[in-house]
């Protein structure tokens, strides 16, 4: 149902310790955000792309399509940042003036936009590295070890599981409505969708009761205990992560005062 989720279960890095992948993604992402020039973010983008496509064996086409996904926000956001509107004429602004209002862009503004663009791309590819190689259940188990409150962890587990159940139900409802011409026009569409949403809600409530009963039957006492297969941490991987992130950190410091 969700392609990212599927790749997480089939990628070649699936059986690497989730803590290692999580640490790598978060560290690299932070370094990327700390950078003040495009060098490190660009490097991170390439590095993670290589890791995702060559090591984790996620199809390149899918990965690039995924990269296009946040473009809508990125373009709109960057447009808002670079677009300068000023009352009085400003020599630094390249643009045009209408009725005394100058509309345009500045050179530093463009630099800033370029930096932000690469930083976002770098950070996003770190996120993708994590989400394309690590199933949600394992991300949750990492969060649990990071002492995120148990209630939050339990809720996450339940939400994750039931996303798929509800999604399937919603899909079935949508199909059965469509087969009766439920989305024939705008008015019918609104009505059908509202019916779908409310029925989905009622059904979810019913399901939650049934689930509670089923868990009670297995001795549920108010706390969901998690069992995990013990999985060894690889020293080799840890060393590799430390090395890569150390080099990136050094590069960030080296390029600290670079203009772009």
């Amino acid at each position, binding site marked *: 149902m969700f392609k990212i989720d599927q790749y997480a279960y089939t990628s070649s890095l699936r059986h690497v310790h989730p803590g290692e992948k999580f640490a790598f993604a978060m560290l690299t992402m932070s370094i990327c955000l700390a950078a003040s020039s495009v060098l490190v973010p660009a490097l991170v983008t390439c590095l993670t792309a290589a890791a995702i496509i060559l090591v984790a064996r996620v199809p390149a086409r899918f990965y690039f399509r995924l990269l296009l996904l946040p473009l809508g*926000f990125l373009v709109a956001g960057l447009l808002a940042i670079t677009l*300068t509107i000023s009352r009085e004429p400003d020599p630094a602004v390249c643009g045009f003036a*209408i009725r005394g209002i100058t509309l345009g862009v500045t050179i530093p503004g463009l630099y800033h936009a370029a930096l932000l663009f690469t930083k976002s791309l770098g950070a996003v590819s770190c996120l993708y590295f994590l989400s394309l190689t690590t199933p949600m259940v394992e991300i949750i188990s990492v969060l649990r070890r990071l002492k995120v409150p148990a209630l939050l962890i339990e809720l996450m587990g*339940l*939400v994750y599981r039931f996303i798929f159940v509800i999604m399937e139900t919603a899909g079935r409802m949508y199909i059965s409505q469509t087969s009766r011409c439920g989305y024939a026009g705008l008015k019918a569409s609104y009505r059908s969708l509202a019916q779908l949403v409310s029925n989905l809600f009622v059904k979810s409530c019913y399901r939650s009761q049934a689930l509670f009963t089923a868990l009670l039957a297995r001795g549920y006492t108010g706390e969901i205990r998690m069992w995990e297969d013990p999985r060894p941490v690889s020293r080799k991987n840890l060393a590799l992560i430390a090395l890569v992130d150390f080099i990136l950190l050094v590069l960030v410091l080296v390029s600290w005062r670079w203009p772009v």
Partner: protein
Amino acid sequence: MRKNTGILLSILFLLFLFFPQQNAWAMHIMEGFLPLKWCLFWYALTLPFLVAGILSIQKAVKVDPGVKMLLGLAGAFAFVLSALKLPSVTGSCSHPTGVGLGAILFGPWAMSVLGCIVLLFQAVLLAHGGLTTLGANTFSMAVVGPLVAYVIYRLGERLALPRWLSVFLAAFLGDLLTYVTTSIQLALAFPASHGGVVAAMIKFMGIFAVTQVPLAISEGILTIIVFNFLVAH
């Protein structure tokens, strides 16, 4: 004047070109867009609300252990809602956020916790939003939105407004204020060189208004119909 509007229109047109179907998620601040210090700031600001949410849920669970399952399903429900397509007035499809509905049904505190989880899942499973920006997104969508929706709905009840109106206003204003909050968050991080934060906010609001205002209206309408159905059940 005519030239002026012409330029504005062409900018709008360009914007439409750049927004594929995913425009609906445009209000999730993407991964890496906010500077580190702002990420931390919004995390810190969201934390008390999350703690309050967790405490209120824990209290409810003590009374009835089944609440946990209900909330788990409600979270999944909210996630699925955000993945549904909404027939929009402009003909394009966008999505209902379900924030208003959730806040009315579950109260704003529980929604902050559920919202945070849903946003985390959206980031990981759908690549909308991000981990570093999770704090900021949670604040705008799972704290401000539900709070506004809830307060408006209660206010409407107290003022004895017709229910459809208070439901509509709750959903509509909840959406709208979410979007205003996001604009403020972006403006604080990227103040304009001329006019500072306020000018930046106007710019962000102007650009995102294209998608967000019709969305808020659609969501308001949908929430009314859903609410009526639920009452009928």
